[in-house]
Every structure is written in structure tokens, then in C-alpha cells.
């Protein structure tokens, strides 16, 4: 099975004509890597139902808004849908008249959080939403930060000087004692009460955000009866750093380090997904060697990420030693990544048009050593865990996800595959060298935590296979170019700058004005360890994106958590959360 044709992933002409027949008012907007249908707000629900039921677009991918301050109505809603049978995506755009849109939670439950986010960020209201509260910020926060008229650094109106400040000390050169509004505990209490207006059971337990078991800073509200969770809601935003807002004021290259810090466990995968999207937008073709390096590093990073998952998951379920064994292997991968890119964690190594530096001496030797060594270690972990009766008891039939859930919530990555849905971006839309390597996409049959555990372990095995193939291939292309500097959008390497005036001028231009991408829109995703990481970029021909929407896999995967935990214990919550494997940097962005 190969699906390498570029545009085959977007809705085809046949379906468009079907739509045209039924809805003549629909207008089509076509780009190389995205196709949008414009529809009126009044017939939106009807139209989406038609797409879902008649045309097979039953999987919800993403929803977001875009702010056009000089247009009336001001906000545009963009829906992304996917048809699993035909492997097609479609985007639907609609204008939010009177700043309201109809809620589509009746069609896709997965839209609940996305709509909350749109309310939070843009102030667009949704009619029919069950509890439209702030997603990331707190209830009494007066602004909607992703609007174009809101400044990136916020409104600094609170006097909040440093506690360490002494008269004789100058704290740092860009220090101001004024700060944006920091909530008080009362504000948080209000947020909490808004999420769960009335408790139905005995006690409401706050689980997280600063809790060792919540994998970051997710704030859970468990309405519990004894140990059993009857109702649950999740408050996100404890790591909301405004990455999407930052993207609007940074050039395409400058944004690369920020993609690291979104999903900090799989930094390289995020970079590759982002850079691929930008390259498609700018029409840059990276050299072959860069593609192979990217694939190899991506897979190493995937192993790295899954190892962290395995370690913390085992730690959550009490197997303390596995945690440290996994970290031992992670250290090796960190060593490799540090040696190649220079930083252990947030490597910012991928560049538009290639990679930042060539592979150093000895890198392939080390990687080969790792490839040889790692399966043995993995086998050890499997011996301790896979058939351990405690492990089986804790995992089997916990948090079972059905195929319908996958489509309803837009689950991706391992979570979707555990339910038997073969949704893997590496397979349906291969980028880089994924169409040239040989690997299996493991699928689960039941969809419980145990399946997800097995799947991740199997994925590690497949990844190590890919790494081996890449290393072998890269061995043969030692002398090749690693970045396509001949392209006008690609920054020249240092050597070129030192030696030629043209390169220096190009460097100056690109640094100062940014890569001035042609006007257009693109939605491109990559297979992150945590699911589909999609980048929806709107370019208005400037050096920075007009709007950059990040479709985060973990965000949507986490959304099913309240549904699955109902009627289960807190102990299961740990297992379930671990197996969904969210990373807060990505969910909150």
C-alpha cells in the first residue's frame, strides 16, 4: 500500500460535484495542500451532517477560528474533517455572524474543547454548547488573546516586582516591575466552580495540576463517590504560553525552536512536522540526505518519547525500577541527539530546506551500536512487565476505546490505532523518507490500556528497524549536501556566508524580513508519538504566518479521558491518563 501522491489526501472532484449538487451555494477554495468549502452559518450543521453521513467524512480532525479584524463578520470558523474509508480530508469554512457559531458537539463530541478554546481565544460564542467556559485562561480573565488587536505581551497593569529585588541590585536589563494580571486563588476557585457547577456525588477531588501523577500540569476535577469517579472535568491551561500568538510575530525560521517547546518530549518530530508544512508552503524541496536524517532522528525521538512514556507509566503503576531503566536508554538517545544537534532535549536542529548541521563523525557508529543494543533492553522491560500478573490486572479492560470514539473525538496516534483504526500519518501521507523505509504499523484489537502498551512497545521495535535502515542508507551518502541552500527561501550555511557576499546578503534579507511565503493556506500534519500534529498555516505573503493553528494530538486524545474514567477508580485514572500519554506543552500550547 502506498499513498505518496501529493494531493490525494484532499477531497476529490467527484465528491465536490456531489456537494455542488446538493448545496449550490458552496464555494470551493483550493490550495496545493488544502481544500476548503465555504458555507453559510445557517446551513452549517446541515452541511456537516451531510458530509459526515453521506460522504463518509466521519472523523473530526480539528476546529479553529481565524480573526480578520477588517472583515465583517470578523471571525471565521474552520473545520477539518477526514474520511477514513477514502483517506480524504476536507476543510469547511464559515463566517461567524454576530460572533456566534452553532455548536457541533451534537455531531462530534470532540468539538467540545475546540469550541471552548475558540471562545477562550477569540470570544466566539457557540450556541448549544453544554458548558462554554474558558479553556486555557481563567474565568475572570477579560481578554481574548488570539484576537489581532491584543498585544502579544499582554496588558501590563499590575505592579509585581521581584521578591529578590534589592535597592543596590539591578535585576536584569529588560526588567520591568509591571506585569500582566496574575490570578488569585479566588479566581481559580471561580474557574473550578464554573467547570463543575454542582457536585453530584460525595467529594470533589482536585487531582493535579502540580501532582506527580498527572504528567505535567493537567488539573483534574474528580467528583467521587468513595474511590469511584462519577464525574470528571479537566482544566487545561496550566502551561498555556501563547505559542500560537507568538507564531504570528516570528518568522518561519524563528518559530522552529518554539515547536520544540510545545511537545518537549518529541521535539524533533514536532520540528519535522512544522518544517515540512512550511516547506510545502514555500515550495522548498530538501535534499535527500536531509530527508533521511530527519526520518532517522524522528524515529529516534519516537523511541525516546515512548521510553519516557513507558517509564512514567510504569512509575505510575508502581514499577519504580523500570522508570530508571527507561531513563538509562533515554540517556543514550539524548547523547546521540546532543552529539548531533548540540542540545539534549529541545534540539531545534531541523531547518527549512534541510537540517542545521551535517552528521558529526562517529554518529552513525553510535547509532548502530544503539540499534544493536536496544532490542535486548526492550526485551528486559517486556519480561518484567508484559506478562506480569499485576501489570495485566492493571491494564486489561481499562479505558476501552471503540472505533466510534476515535471518529467522534478525533483521536489519533497510538490511541486511535489501539482501537483498530489504521490512522498513521506516516502511512497515509508519507513525508521525508517514510515512503522508502520498510516498517509495520501495529494495530490493536481491543482498545484498552494493555493494547496501547503493546502498541507502543511494538512501535519502538518498528522505529528501531527504521533507524537501522536510515543509518545504513546514510552511510552511503556521507558527502551529500544536507541543506538545499540553492533555494531562495533557505538560509545559507555559515561557510557560505563567510565566503560569499551573495550568501551574506541573502542571509541578511531572510533574517530581517523572514521567508516571505506566497499567499495561501496549508494544512499538513506529521505523525507525532502522541498523535497527529497538524499545522494549519495561513500566509498573507508576509515574513511570518498570519495565523498558525496547531492541531495537537494530545489535546484531542485527552478529551476522551472524562468519558472513559466515569465509574472507575482513581487508580484507573492514573493508568488511563498514562496510556493516553498527553504532554501538556502540546495540549496547552
Amino acid at each position, binding site marked *: 500500500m502506498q499513498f505518496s501522491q501529493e494531493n490525494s489526501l484532499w477531497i476529490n472532484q467527484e465528491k465536490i460535484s456531489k456537494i455542488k449538487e446538493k448545496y449550490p451555494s458552496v464555494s470551493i477554495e483550493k490550495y496545493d495542500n488544502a481544500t476548503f468549502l465555504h458555507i453559510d452559518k445557517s446551513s452549517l450543521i446541515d452541511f456537516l451532517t451531510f458530509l459526515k453521513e453521506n460522504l463518509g467524512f466521519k472523523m473530526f480532525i480539528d476546529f479553529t477560528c481565524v480573526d480578520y479584524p477588517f472583515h465583517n463578520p470578523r471571525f471565521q470558523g474552520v473545520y477539518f474533517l477526514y474520511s477514513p474509508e477514502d483517506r480524504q480530508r476536507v476543510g469547511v469554512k464559515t463566517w461567524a455572524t454576530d460572533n456566534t457559531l452553532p455548536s457541533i458537539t451534537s455531531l462530534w463530541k470532540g468539538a467540545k474543547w475546540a469550541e471552548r478554546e475558540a471562545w477562550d481565544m477569540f470570544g466566539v460564542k457557540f450556541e448549544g454548547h453544554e458548558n462554554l467556559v474558558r479553556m486555557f485562561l481563567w474565568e475572570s480573565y477579560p481578554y481574548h488573546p488570539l484576537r489581532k488587536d491584543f498585544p502579544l505581551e499582554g496588558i501590563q497593569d499590575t505592579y509585581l516586582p521581584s521578591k529578590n529585588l534589592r535597592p543596590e541590585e539591578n535585576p536584569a536589563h529588560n526588567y520591568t516591575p509591571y506585569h500582566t494580571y496574575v490570578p488569585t486563588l479566588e479566581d481559580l476557585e471561580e474557574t473550578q466552580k464554573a467547570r463543575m457547577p454542582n457536585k453530584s456525588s460525595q467529594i470533589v477531588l482536585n487531582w493535579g495540576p502540580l501532582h506527580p501523577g498527572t504528567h505535567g500540569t493537567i488539573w483534574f476535577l474528580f467528583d467521587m463517590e468513595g474511590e469511584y469517579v462519577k464525574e470528571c472535568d479537566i482544566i487545561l491551561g496550566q502551561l498555556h*504560553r501563547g505559542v500560537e500568538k507568538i507564531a504570528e510575530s516570528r518568522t518561519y525560521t524563528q518559530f522552529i525552536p518554539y515547536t520544540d517547546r510545545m511537545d518537549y518530549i518529541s521535539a524533533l518530530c514536532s520540528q519535522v512536522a512544522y518544517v515540512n508544512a512550511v516547506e510545502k508552503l514555500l515550495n522548498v524541496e530538501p535534499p535527500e540526505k536531509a530527508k533521511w536524517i530527519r526520518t532517522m532522528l524522528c524515529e529516534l525521538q519516537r523511541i525516546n518519547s515512548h521510553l519516557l512514556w513507558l517509564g512514567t507509566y510504569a512509575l505510575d503503576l508502581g514499577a519504580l525500577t523500570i522508570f530508571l531503566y527507561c531513563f538509562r536508554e533515554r540517556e543514550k538517545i539524548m547523547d546521540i541527539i546532543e552529539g548531533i544537534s548540540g542540545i539534549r532535549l529541545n534540539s531545534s536542529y531541523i531547518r527549512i530546506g534541510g537540517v542545521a548541521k551535517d552528521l558529526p563523525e562517529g554518529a552513525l557508529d553510535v547509532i548502530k551500536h544503539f540499534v544493536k543494543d536496544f532490542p535486548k533492553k526492550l526485551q528486559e522491560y517486556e519480561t518484567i512487565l508484559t506478562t506480569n500478573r499485576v501489570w495485566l490486572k492493571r491494564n486489561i479492560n481499562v479505558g476501552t476505546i471503540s472505533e466510534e470514539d476515535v471518529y467522534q473525538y478525533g483521536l489519533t496516534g497510538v490511541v486511535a490505532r489501539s482501537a483498530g483504526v489504521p490512522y498513521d500519518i506516516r502511512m497515509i501521507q508519507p513525508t521525508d523518507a517514510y515512503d522508502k523505509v520498510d516498517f509495520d504499523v501495529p494495530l490493536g484489537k481491543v482498545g484498552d490500556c494493555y493494547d496501547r502498551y503493546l502498541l507502543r512497545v511494538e512501535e519502538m521495535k518498528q522505529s528501531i528497524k527504521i533507524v537501522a535502515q536510515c543509518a545504513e542508507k546514510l552511510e552511503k551518502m556521507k558527502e551529500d549536501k544536507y541543506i538545499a541552500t540553492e533555494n531562495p527561501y533557505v538560509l545559507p550555511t555559515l561557510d557560505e556566508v563567510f565566503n560569499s557576499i551573495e550568501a551574506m546578503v541573502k542571509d541578511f534579507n531572510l533574517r530581517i524580513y523572514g521567508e516571505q511565503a506566497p499567499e495561501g493556506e496549508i494544512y499538513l500534519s506529521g505523525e507525532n508519538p502522541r498523535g497527529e500534529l497538524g499545522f494549519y498555516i495561513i500566509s498573507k505573503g508576509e515574513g511570518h504566518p498570519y495565523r498558525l493553528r496547531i492541531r495537537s494530538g494530545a489535546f484531542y486524545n485527552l478529551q476522551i479521558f472524562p468519558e472513559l474514567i466515569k465509574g472507575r477508580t482513581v487508580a484507573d485514572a492514573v493508568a488511563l491518563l498514562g496510556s493516553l500519554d498527553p504532554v501538556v506543552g502540546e495540549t496547552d500550547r
Partner: protein
Amino acid sequence: MAIKHNSGIILTTVEEVLSWGRRNSLWPASIGLACCAIEMMHTAASRFDTDRLGIIFRGSPRQSDVLIVAGTVVNKVAPMLKLIYDQMPDPKWVISMGGCSSVGGPFPTYSTLQGVDRIIPVDVYVPGCPPTPQALLWGIMQLQKKIKEKKEGKVWDEIPVREVPTASQPLLEKSPFGF
């Protein structure tokens, strides 16, 4: 905690012994916020092993001595962090790990706290994004040094500011009673 609470005059030797105990048994609250938390976990893991220095991570702030603020502190977390800091028993210290928590780092945005020292007093800043485990360990050692200096009754100003660090050389000898 900056050196503003000098808890009276006790016998110097006693104070010295207590200070030795405190600096050799720093239990951090395991509160990870973002990327730095991963490196913090790596510091605790086998390769760098904070347990060597008597550092074990505790889940509850009630039992911890040092708060390692690892990661971006956004405005929403700030009151929580303040609460956790208050809930820790004295004597307590704060290490601000990484640029984000020290000064806001690369996120000068509407939602990020521009430096955790606006909420709680910070003892040691560890720059880096994220700092490597070795950098964090160095930070912890700086804190140990500070506790030692404090025992000697030195006020904060007198604690020497380090020279510009250049080469990092391994220490040659181990002191038998910890450092």
C-alpha cells in the same frame, strides 16, 4: 528563601551540624511544569543520580525542603506555586530551573509569568533551556554552598558572586563528610 530569617543565636557548632544535615539532605518537591521537568527527571535518574547527594524527590511539599521550579510558570499556575511554597515547612529554598521560570525565558507573552521571583523569593537561578542535568546539579551545589555560607552568619550580599564560569573541571578530592 533569601537570608532574611536568621533564626537567632544558637551555638555555632550546633548550627553548623544542622546546616550540614540540611544541605546534605535536600528533598525537592517533585513539581515539574514543562520541559525542564524532563531534565529534572533525568537528573534524578541513574546517570546523574541525585540520590548520591542525598536528594530524593518527595511528592508532597510538606516534606520537602527545596522547591525546584522546573519549567514555564504561567500566570495561572503562579498562585498555585505560591501556595505550594507557603505550604512547605521552613527552612526552605527555591531553585529556579531554566530560563522560563527565572525570567520568563523565550515566552514574553500575555500568559507567562516573567520570572518566578515575582511570586516567591528565589535562591538560585539556573539558566538554560532546559539546563542539562549537570547544570542543575551545579545549581544544587550552589544552593548547598549558600546554605553553608548562611550558617556562617553571612548576609546575602557577602555571599560571593561567582566569577564568569569558563572551563568546567572535575573536583579532585572528595570530602569525607559531604560538602
